[in-house]
């Protein structure tokens, strides 16, 4: 890995050079909540000053840029009794992501495992993913962040460059030659020993700020053992089956497909819509049989997919510990609490 260091004001130069030739997505403030805390979101930006690099977690991840909520998989032209199918992967340009936190980068790495590197890679994702240039940025752990428990508090790959705030300067890790060449446009230096020390100090400071924790020891096995546990029913009684947890999750990728005929009868389309396993119809089949009719069985399945199934397939869980689902869940269903209660078994 190549390291450089540069003055903070240089970042604006970098942004402007990149934004002049490319589309850039970054974190901005879109409003304030009722306690007057800012609400952040990822959106296309053209002005460096609108980017909030010290943002806490965004409500929604940058998912719509790589897994849109709705996306046409194909369109059809219908003529008499014949049809023509057109497939479009809905990616037409590269995008620069200016300031993704480690959890969100790790989320992409997890999605890569199932959508890019496994059998039947999904071109709709791959086309967008291969056209992402990612600038990572370090963050301040919030009370709800348990990424450290999930091993997602630092990103080792999946980005082009990663910047860390060292007070007056940024320390940058460079992973790709594209990033290396981009950085030639601004003034950077070779970091010195004292910069390394500063970097390590800042990392140690950050580590102290993690408060939320999940005990993942043997979790896959425990989920199996506690499959019939009553705690699931208790959580199921609270769950609203609203799907918000999946929508705000940077790693949830499941979907449903719907085909529709346009009202002129001359065209039709096949649309993919992100779904959520908490929704009532997730496992319903023709004739109305539902394999998971109860809220608790669906909620349980959510944990099953994330902390057991994915682990079995890829040796890691499908959760980066960003805490978004718990923060957005109106019923207050939070991963650390759910897992602690399942670990606690019947005692609760």
């Amino acid at each position, binding site marked *: 890995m190549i390291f450089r260091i540069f003055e903070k004001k240089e970042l604006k130069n970098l942004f402007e050079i990149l934004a002049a030739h490319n589309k850039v997505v970054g974190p901005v403030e879109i409003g304030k909540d009722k306690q007057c805390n800012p609400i952040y979101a990822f959106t296309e930006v053209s002005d460096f000053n609108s980017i909030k690099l010290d943002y806490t977690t965004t409500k929604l991840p940058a998912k719509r840029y790589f897994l849109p909520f709705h996306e046409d998989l194909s369109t059809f032209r219908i003529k008499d009794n014949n049809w023509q199918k057109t497939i479009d992967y809905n990616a037409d340009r590269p995008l620069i992501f200016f300031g993704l936190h480690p959890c969100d980068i790790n989320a992409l790495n997890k999605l890569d495992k199932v959508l890019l590197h496994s059998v039947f890679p999904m071109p709709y994702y*791959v086309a967008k993913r*291969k056209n992402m240039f990612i600038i990572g940025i370090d963050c301040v752990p919030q009370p709800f962040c348990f990424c450290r428990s999930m091993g997602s508090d630092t990103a080792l790959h999946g980005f082009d460059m990663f910047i860390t705030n060292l007070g007056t300067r940024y320390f940058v890790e460079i992973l790709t030659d594209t990033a290396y060449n981009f950085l030639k446009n601004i003034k950077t230096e070779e970091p010195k020993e004292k910069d390394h020390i500063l970097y390590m100090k800042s990392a140690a400071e950050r580590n102290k700020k993690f408060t939320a924790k999940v005990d993942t020891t043997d979790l896959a096995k425990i989920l199996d053992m506690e499959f019939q546990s009553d705690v699931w029913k208790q959580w199921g009684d609270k769950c609203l089956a609203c799907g918000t947890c999946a929508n705000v999750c940077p790693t949830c*990728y499941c979907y449903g497909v719907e085909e529709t005929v*346009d009202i002129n009868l001359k065209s039709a389309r096949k649309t993919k819509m992100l779904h959520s396993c908490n929704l009532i119809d997730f496992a319903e089949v023709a004739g109305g049989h539902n394999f*998971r009719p109860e809220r608790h*069985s669906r909620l349980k399945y959510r944990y099953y997919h994330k902390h057991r199934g994915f682990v079995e397939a890829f040796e890691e869980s499908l959760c980066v510990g960003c805490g978004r689902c718990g923060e957005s869940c109106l019923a207050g269903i939070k991963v650390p609490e759910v897992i602690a209660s399942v670990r606690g078994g019947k005692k609760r």
Partner: protein
Amino acid sequence: MKPELKFVDIISQQPKMQKRKNDLSSFEYTYRAEITSMYQLTDMETLYRIQIVNPEERRRFAFIPGQFLMLEIPGIGEAPFSISSSPSIHGEVELCIRKAGNLTNFLSKVGRGAIVGIRGPFGTGFPMEEMHGQNILLIAGGLGLVPLRSPIAYVQENRSHFREVNIVYGTKSPQHLLFTYQYDVWIKDDINLNIIVEKADPSWIGSVGMLTDTLMKILEGRDNEFYHNTYAIVCGPPVMFKFVCNMLNKFNIPMQKMFVSLERRMHCGMGKCCRCNVGSTYTCLKGPVFDYWTVMNLKEAI
């Protein structure tokens, strides 16, 4: 150098001669296929013969018994169906489809010559070669005969490779029996056909009762040599295969030699939509055909 990113075209970049399983462009690609004939089997079920239009694609399309494909009618829908014909015929499949909802109702209205889209084949199949030299029990309840028709065709074509072959088939009533026109040929191929209906009508002269009764008669009084050298393929509603497999288990037929086919909701067939998961196992990738040991170890399977 202008700091401008170049658009990466993933399709032109991927190496030629890919396998379907890692070819990006095959993800949403559907073979255009023609419904060459349709034959109504019962009130609810129709057998469709479907042929891939392009001769080159037809030559390449091969499957193993037990696999399924996704059938699409543009604008109407797409759904999974078991392939119900001989694996030795390439590029042409038979599907037996029950009217159950949106797509299947529409399908019952299209005529000969209609063009549909198919993707696949997907999923696991029955390990027919592993069964060579063994006895076979093919046990079907109701629509479960549909996926069994492919292994039956395989057995017929390779009859010398198998020892005793029994079909045990149960339905609600005689009107529900599928593929009646084929029974004579099965019997001539030295396959024991045991049919039982839950409720007879006046014309019915065969057995009446539960499928497990018939199975019991076949299994009782055999020696261990028979039990240890028998494979079973069981298809039907979950309650049925649970009873059947438990019975087979009592006779010491190894669980790894019993195969069942699971049905779940499916929207992709390729391990992406998650709709088909049982516990946390993808039915479309690891199944639909599972050995019974695996099913026992799946949460939510039965």
